[in-house]
């Protein structure tokens, strides 16, 4: 049992904390754009899956996912201590263009960091 405790201690150190924050539409909803069809999907269909758009510019409706990944570790022993933390955030934007009939004309996805932000503890 003590061996497990020691291994756990080492694991905790190696795991280096894990922080994940998400704002915006749920992850499961974000993948639903595979079902969108130009000329068929309406604005209402998209709102029913993703909620109201975060930005509207004319006929372009935009939905955003804000994701932040990072880590944090505190090490302290009596009066000596230090804290290391890091966070990287990115935005994924889904831009959908609708025609005057309210149906989808086209869509594109852009990411402020291709592939999303990576987990990393080290701030340097």
């Amino acid at each position: 049992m003590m061996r497990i405790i020691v291994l756990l201690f080492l694991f905790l150190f190696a795991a280096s904390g894990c922080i994940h924050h998400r704002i915006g539409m749920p992850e499961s909803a974000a993948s639903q754009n595979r079902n969108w069809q130009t000329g068929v999907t309406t604005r209402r269909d998209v709102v029913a899956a993703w909620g109201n758009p975060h930005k509207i510019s004319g006929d372009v409706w935009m939905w955003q996912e804000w994701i932040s990944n990072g880590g944090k570790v505190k090490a302290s022993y009596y009066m000596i201590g230090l804290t290391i933390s890091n966070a990287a955030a990115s935005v994924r934007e889904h831009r959908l263009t609708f025609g005057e009939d309210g149906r989808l004309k086209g869509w594109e996805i852009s990411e402020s960091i291709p592939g999303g932000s990576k987990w990393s503890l080290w701030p340097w």
Partner: protein
Amino acid sequence: MVRRLPIIILAAFFLDGCKIARDQVNIHVRDIDTSWIEPGVTTRRQVIDRIGMPPTAKGLGGVTADAFRWTLYDKRTGTLEAGYIVTPTFELSRAHFAEDILVRFDESGKVSLVSRTVSDGKNVRITEWKECRK
């Protein structure tokens, strides 16, 4: 007692530093009544007189040239700081718009769309959708 000691140490590692937090912004958005709004008939002035204008805060809705948006922002966070001497933080948070009201206006200042949604963080449901097509 000696045999139970490792379990107690394990439990102390994991339970100490467990935090469950909830943040909510603008709960009063739930009480806004939009059922009386008629697209193509109701004007921006009538919306302002009856409901008022939404607060403008970054990312939380507000006033734009052709729309008003009210949002109820809801965030749930679970944090675990487990360890002794070295303490990594494990944190997961999800934020969503639990209630979201969008009212759009056309060039003449009349309401062209009312869209109201509720969300529990996993699913979204439209509670009101009224549109005035061109």
